[in-house]
């Protein structure tokens, strides 16, 4: 059922030339994907997809669209070559998929090797109930450090391309969507729960679904909402872009700092047992610190990317 909807949306996205509709459909596509992930027991992923795909990503696409053009030009010619390439690649992939283990098969390769180790050892070695968080922040901490740096770099790239914003290009109090009498009180009541929820997701990530990635995005979306309803001058007064740039670096610094601290304590990089005499308590502290670092970086990068787009005026 869900997959059927996804297919319909994909086809519609190909055919429509109104890019606004395409972007909104893409948001719906993401939300449906999140529902599908929920159905497949991937609660953390569903959470992230709903916050990122349906929320932040759509807002960013729309602000990008504002600076370009809403309507796609009619294609001059439809070359059969791309269709052929796609058909051949698709056929090859389907041929490969015929050998794939069926859905939910316990003998599939993915359920051998390290998966049983993570599931059995997490309660003993790391002691946090959410295995996804344990793998993310502890067992595969190097990878996550890499991802955090990638996000930081992406934020840097956007700022380099669009300028750091602020100053000349925005007028305080100016509002992208006009003065909305109904929207303002609604947004006002929504923002505190959103921010509170962001904090809850951040600090409860060890126990339930959630963690730094989701929390950062949710926290940023609270400010994006404020910015949209009350005008960018006001949002920038609450969190100035210059702070955000420092915060983004601070998050990476916290993550890396934990790793370097472990080095100085005579352990391996990011070995959290250096943080406490009791290894399990050390893991707890390490995961908490690292997740805070991730949360800060994700929050400030997402928000400064949004500022960069919204602060730019259309030129042509």
């Amino acid at each position: 059922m869900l997959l059927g909807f996804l297919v319909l949306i994909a086809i519609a996205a190909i055919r429509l030339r109104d890019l606004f509709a395409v972007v909104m459909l893409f948001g719906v596509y993401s939300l449906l994907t999140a529902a599908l992930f929920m159905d497949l027991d991937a609660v953390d992923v569903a959470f992230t997809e709903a916050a990122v795909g349906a929320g932040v990503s759509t807002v960013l696409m729309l602000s990008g669209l504002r600076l370009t053009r809403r309507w796609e030009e009619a294609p001059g010619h439809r070359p059969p070559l791309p269709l052929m390439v796609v058909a051949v690649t698709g056929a090859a992939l389907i041929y490969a998929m015929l050998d794939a283990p069926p859905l939910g098969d316990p003998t599939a390769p993915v359920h051998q090797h390290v998966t049983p180790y993570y599931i059995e050892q997490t309660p003993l070695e790391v002691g946090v109930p959410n295995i996804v968080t344990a793998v993310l922040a502890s067992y595969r901490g190097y990878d996550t450090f890499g991802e955090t740096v990638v996000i930081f770099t992406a934020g840097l790239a956007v700022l380099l391309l669009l300028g750091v914003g602020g100053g000349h290009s925005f007028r305080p109090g100016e509002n992208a969507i006009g003065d909305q009498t109904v929207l303002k009180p609604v947004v006002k009541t929504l923002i505190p729960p959103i921010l509170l929820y962001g904090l809850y997701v951040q600090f409860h990530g060890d126990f339930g679904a959630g963690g730094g990635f989701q929390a950062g995005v949710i926290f940023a979306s609270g400010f994006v909402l404020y910015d949209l309803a009350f005008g960018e001058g006001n949002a920038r007064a609450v969190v100035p872009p210059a702070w955000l740039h420092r915060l983004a670096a601070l998050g990476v610094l916290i993550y890396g700092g934990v790793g370097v601290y472990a080095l100085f304590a005579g352990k391996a990089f990011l070995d959290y047992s250096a943080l406490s005499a009791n290894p399990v308590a050390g893991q707890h502290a390490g995961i908490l610190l690292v997740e805070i670092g991730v949360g800060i970086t994700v929050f400030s990068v997402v928000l400064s990317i949004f500022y960069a787009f919204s602060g730019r005026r259309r030129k042509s």
Partner: protein
Amino acid sequence: MNALPGIFNYLVVVFLMMAGFYVVIAQGNLIKKLVGLGLFQASVFILYITMGNLAGGAAPIVTEGVTVYSSPLPHVLILTAIVVGVATTAVGLALAVRIQEAYGSVEEEVIHASDLRDDESLFGEPAACDREGGQ
């Protein structure tokens, strides 16, 4: 969804992936290409999460009385990939915005034609390789 037999999920994933691929290679609008890339990306996410699913398994959060969990590893990979995905999409969008400002369009053909005109005004006649590329 668990009741659906076998590899149905994978087939849909391939279809979605190819839909995204088609948008990327066949359509000229840069914003639409980014959406196509997003479709492709999301289908890969579905592929991974489908592989991690286990019949009768629970979400990988340790609960008393539950012994069978879905594999947490694909979840971790995709969770970070989603956030990195939005960051890289933002970079793509920023590039598209700059292209719009420089060329006045995000249509591939317009950009290409504009490049050819620039070459002609600089070097008199378009180079052979450019002429072929333009046709």
